[in-house]
C-alpha cells in the first residue's frame, strides 16, 4: 500500500515536473524566438506586402497596385543589365579570386618554420575592416598618384584610368577581393590541410610518389569538400553584391558596375521609389533563398 501511494505521488509529481521543465525550457528560448520573428520573418512579410502597393511614406501603405511592381521589374532593361553585372563580378571573382587561396594554402602547408609568419601576412588584410580596405584600394587605383600606375610604369606600361575605364574596372574591383576575402578562405583551407595525418604522405613517399602527386592525391582531396562548398557559397552570393561597388565606384563609370541591389538602393534613396526598391530586393531575396535551399539539399545527399 505504502509503495503504491508513493508511486502515484511520484507519478503526479512527474507530470507537473515535466510541464515545469517544458515551461522553463521555453523560457530560455523565448527571446530569440521573438527576435527572429520580429527582425527576420516579419520583414519578409512586410516586403511582400509592400511590393503590391505603390507606397506612400506619409500615408502607409498607399495604393494597391497588384503585380504592377513585378511587371515593371520584368520589363525594366536595367534589371537585366544590373543582374548581368552581378554575374560578371562573380565570373571575374572566379578567374582572379577563387583559386589563388587554394594554391597559397597548399604552398603554406609545405613550409616549416615560416608557416605562422606567412599565415599572419596573408590573413591580416582579411580581418581589417572591409570598408577601410576597399577605400584604400580605391586610392591605389587612383590615376594621378595611385600606386597602380607607378607599378605598371616600372614595366613600361603607360598610365591607365583603372576604375574609370569600363574595360578595366571589373579587374580592378576583383583584385582586392583576392587579397581581402582570399586571406580568410586561405585560412579555412589551411586549417583542414593541417588535419591530414603525416602517415598518408609517408606511405605515398615509400610507394615512390612525387611531391606533386602527393599534393594532387592526398592534400587536394582533403579540401575537396570545402572547395565545393566555397564555390556554392559564392554562387549563392552572386546577387548579394552591394557594398563593394557602392563604395568603390558608386556603380560607375556610366553605370557599368551597378549591381541589382545597388540599383534598388539608388531607387530607394535617390528617387524615394520604395515599392520598386523592395520589389527588386524581394526578387534577390527569393533567388538567394532558392539557391541556399538547393545547396542544403545537395549537402544532405552527401
Amino acid at each position, binding site marked *: 500500500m505504502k509503495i503504491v501511494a508513493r508511486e502515484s505521488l511520484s507519478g503526479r509529481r512527474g507530470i507537473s515536473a515535466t510541464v515545469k*521543465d517544458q515551461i522553463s*525550457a*521555453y523560457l*530560455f*528560448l523565448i*527571446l*530569440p*524566438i521573438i*527576435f*527572429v520573428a*520580429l*527582425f*527576420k*520573418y*516579419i*520583414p*519578409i512579410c512586410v*516586403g511582400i506586402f509592400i511590393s503590391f502597393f505603390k507606397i506612400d*511614406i506619409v500615408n502607409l501603405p498607399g495604393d494597391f497596385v497588384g503585380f504592377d511592381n513585378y511587371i515593371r521589374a520584368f520589363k525594366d532593361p536595367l534589371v537585366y543589365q544590373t543582374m548581368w553585372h552581378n554575374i560578371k563580378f562573380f565570373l571575374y571573382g572566379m578567374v582572379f579570386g577563387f583559386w589563388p587561396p587554394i594554391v*597559397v594554402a597548399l*604552398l603554406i*602547408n*609545405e*613550409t616549416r618554420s615560416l608557416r605562422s609568419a606567412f599565415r599572419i601576412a*596573408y590573413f*591580416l*588584410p582579411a*580581418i*581589417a*575592416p572591409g*570598408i*577601410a*580596405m576597399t*577605400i*584604400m*584600394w580605391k586610392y*591605389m587605383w587612383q590615376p594621378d598618384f595611385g*600606386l597602380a600606375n*607607378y607599378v605598371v610604369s616600372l614595366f613600361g606600361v603607360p598610365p591607365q584610368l583603372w576604375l574609370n575605364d569600363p574595360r578595366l574596372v571589373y579587374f580592378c574591383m576583383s583584385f*582586392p577581393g583576392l587579397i581581402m576575402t582570399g586571406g580568410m578562405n586561405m585560412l*579555412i583551407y589551411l*586549417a583542414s590541410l*593541417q588535419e591530414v595525418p*603525416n602517415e598518408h*604522405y*609517408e606511405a605515398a*613517399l615509400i610507394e615512390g610518389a612525387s611531391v606533386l602527386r602527393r599534393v594532387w592525391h*592526398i*592534400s587536394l582531396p582533403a579540401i575537396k569538400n*570545402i572547395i565545393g*562548398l566555397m564555390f556554392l557559397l559564392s554562387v549563392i552570393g552572386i546577387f*548579394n553584391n*552591394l557594398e563593394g561597388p557602392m563604395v568603390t565606384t*558608386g556603380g560607375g563609370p556610366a553605370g557599368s558596375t551597378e549591381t541589382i541591389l545597388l540599383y534598388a538602393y539608388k531607387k*530607394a534613396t535617390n528617387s524615394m521609389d*520604395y515599392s520598386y526598391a523592395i520589389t527588386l*530586393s524581394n526578387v534577390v*531575396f527569393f533567388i*538567394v533563398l532558392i539557391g541556399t535551399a538547393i545547396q*542544403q539539399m545537395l549537402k544532405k545527399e552527401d
Partner: protein
Amino acid sequence: MAAIQNIEMKNTRTKVLYGAIVAFLVVGGIVQILPMFLMITGAFKTDTQLSQIPPVFWPTGWDFGAIFEVLDAYHMGRNFLNTFYICAGVILIQVPTSAMAAFSLSKLKPKGGKIVFLYFIATMMFSAQAQIFPLYIMLASLNVLNFKTTYVLVCSIGITNIVLFKGFFDNIPKSLEEAAKVDGASSMKIFTSIVLPLSKPVFMVVILNVFMATYNDFFTSLMLLPDEVNWTVMIRLYSAQSMGGISLHALYSLLTVATVPILLVYVFAQKYLIEGISLTGIKG
C-alpha cells in the same frame, strides 16, 4: 601535415623546390601586406609626400599630433563611442540569449525543440542585404529609425552563434547534468554552474565573432542610423571619402585609426579569432 617529408629535405631537388615555394610566398605576402602598409604609413606622411611619383614608402617622421587633429575634425571620437556602444549592446544581448537558447535546445530538449531549431536555422538562407530594405520601411513607419537601441535589437540575433553554442554544449557529457538533476538543481542552476564554467572557449569565439561583425558592419548601420550624431566609424569612413575634398593624409589617418581596434583584437585574441573563422566560415 606537409606533402614534402622532412627526410627528403636533404636532397638538392627538394631544397630547390622548397626555396621556390618560400620565394613565391614572400613575393605574394608583400603584395598582400602592401595596401595595409601604405595605409598605416600614409597616416604619417604629408599630402605632398602622398601624391608624389615615385611614391615615398617610408615616412620621414612619426607625427601623431596631425592624426589627432584629423580625428577631431571628423568627430571620430563620437563615431568610436557610437560603435563601441553598439558593439557592447549587441554582445550583451546576443551572447547570453544565444547561449541560453542553445542550452535549452541541447540539454533541456523541450517538445518541439527540433521545430524551433529549424525555425532558427531557416533564416540562415535569407539574404541579409536584401532584407534591409523592407526592414528599413518597417522601422521607418514605426518611427524608430536613428536609435542606437533599435540597431542593437535588430542585430541581437545571431543564428550562427546559436549553432556554435549548441554544437559545443552537445559535447558536454550528459552524466554531469544528470548528477546535478538528482541533487535537485534547476535548469538555470545547471546552466550557470555546470555548462558555463566549461564553455569559456566557445564564449570567447562567439564574443569575438559578434564584435568583429558589429564593428565592421557598414550597410545595416548606414540604413538604420542615417543621422550624423549616430554614425559609426565605418559610416564615417564611407562619407568622408564619398563627399570628396578630403586630403590624403586625413583619409589615411581615418582608415588607419579605424583598423587599430581590429589589430589589437588580433594581437590579444588571435587563437579565438582564427578558431571562430574556421568554425563559422565554412558554415557561412
